[in-house]
């Protein structure tokens, strides 16, 4: 069974069909990319899957559970985590604290323990901190651990979001344009991080414009245009698809 299955999904904003009758599935343990020109509905699709938007119609299942209309925090409990194209960083906290929030569901967060700073909470927090420092190291941000997020460069913040999402220990990780706004070197670094994440058995769904990255790391690609499925398949199949070429180059087939 697929880890994530989308069936007949639609979303309208007023009269605009941002996503229309879309069906696809993501197999566990793969890197699955979603591509398409600007305005194709990629981010809307992400927001539907991750509970930011409620679908107008259709079903989304994660591991067989219907998740359409569930809140983001409920989805996190089911093993879904994501990053954002427009960063959602806690700029009022340090880098390691940002990641520690990611581990929220895996720490003892009872009020009285926190209020009285009981030893068990202190121990748990120390262990959580160690784990989060490892995650920062994993994404290549070890040297920023104690830095305030507000003082970190853009490229580092992109990776900080990945570390935070990993701290939630997801089965399914959705990355919304992780390479957007990065230079070639930073892009390659992100590329490496995504491969390492997938290597740990975490299923990755990726929205990305950087075709070099997409073609290089994806097991499977879904191409969207005007909210509809344009093509689907392996990188080689999608690259050769006439509709995809037309949509990207603007040629009329």
């Amino acid at each position, binding site marked *: 069974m697929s880890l994530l299955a989308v069936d007949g999904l639609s979303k309208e904003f007023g009269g605009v069909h941002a996503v229309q009758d879309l069906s696809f599935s993501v197999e566990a343990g793969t890197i699955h990319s979603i591509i398409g020109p600007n305005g194709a509905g990629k981010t809307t699709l992400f927001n539907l899957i991750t509970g930011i938007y409620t679908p107008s119609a259709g079903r989304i299942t994660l591991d067989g559970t219907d998740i359409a209309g569930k809140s983001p925090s409920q989805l996190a409990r089911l093993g879904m985590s994501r990053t954002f194209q427009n960063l959602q960083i806690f*700029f009022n906290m340090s880098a390691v604290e940002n990641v520690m929030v990611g581990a929220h569901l895996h720490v003892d967060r009872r009020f009285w323990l926190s209020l009285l700073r009981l030893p068990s909470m202190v121990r748990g927090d120390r262990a959580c901190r160690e784990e989060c420092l490892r995650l920062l190291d994993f994404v290549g941000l070890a040297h920023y651990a104690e830095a305030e997020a507000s003082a970190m460069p853009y490229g580092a913040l992109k990776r900080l979001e990945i570390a935070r999402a990993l701290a939630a220990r997801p089965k399914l990780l959705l990355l919304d344009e992780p390479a957007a706004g990065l230079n070639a070197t930073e892009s390659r670094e992100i590329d490496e991080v995504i491969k390492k994440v997938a290597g740990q058995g975490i299923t990755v769904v990726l929205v990305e414009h950087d075709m070099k990255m997409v073609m290089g790391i994806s097991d499977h690609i879904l191409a969207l245009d005007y909210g509809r499925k344009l093509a689907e398949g392996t990188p080689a199949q999608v690259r050769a698809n006439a509709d995809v070429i037309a949509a990207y180059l603007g040629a009329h087939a």
Partner: protein
Amino acid sequence: MSMTKSSLLTARVGGMALLSAVLALAPLGFANAYYYDVAVGALFNAIICVGLNLLIGYGGQISLGHGAFFALGAYGSAIATSRWGVPPLAAMVASATLVGLMAFVIARPILRLKGHYLAMATLGIGMIIYIVLKTEAQWTGGPDGMGVDPLAVAGLALSTDRQWYWLSAALLLLAVWLSLNLVQSPVGRALRAGHGAEIGAQVVGVDTSHYKVLMFVVSAVFASVVGSLFAHKNGFITPDIASFHRSIELVTMVVLGGMASIFGSVLGAFILTLLPQMLTAFDDYEAMIFGAIMMGTMIFLPKGLLPSLILLIRKRMGGRS
């Protein structure tokens, strides 16, 4: 990295030590009982502001109704002790529990609102409570107010301003300690995360509204407990303690001292309570100078007193090394 860790240690342990020293040494400069009286007022405000800052500074939620929670605590203790003969400590705990419950019930619908709308809603709650306290004269004595017995625990009564000073100083240290604990815990991180990037917090499983509600309740309980103490200390209360002006004053202390700074709140409360006393020498110009100081602070130190000062010191030290 180790440096930041040690400076964290300073903020926590060092800050507590400094505050303890200030509180212990301040009475050396007190010439008479009046000084103690004013100092107790400052300590009371500081305790409320430390709690309120959890909501405003760390949680990012405004409240213009905390003066009313303070008043409810005061009236709860006053009514329970003088009309029903409940022991003061039990009355204080019962009042705080009821205020906490009430805050819990109203928090969910209210905290859905944001910015100006939230400010308006909390303002409305405060006004309702003010009017109830003023009109339910058979319980509260109406606009004329009501008398309250002194605080007595197990037969021992607190009578002098000096005793009140040490009690409230100890309670302020407790309040600061508890708040520092909260801020640097999973609960505090979840709260700050909801303020920093709400959706970012939700996608990793943080139920952001839960933490806002929690801090609304905690800050209301802080205000209620101080209200109870105030009632016993003053011996007489009127509905004016629930006034809009009082709530604004509390928020101003938090903002002036520095949002998301526990010790900043203490500083803000001290300054805004003591400044009018110091400015009395200027007679008619007192309010004007007071206003000018406030405006100047907000223009030149927009992050609030303490965070701006710390930033300044860090810059100096950074420049040298």
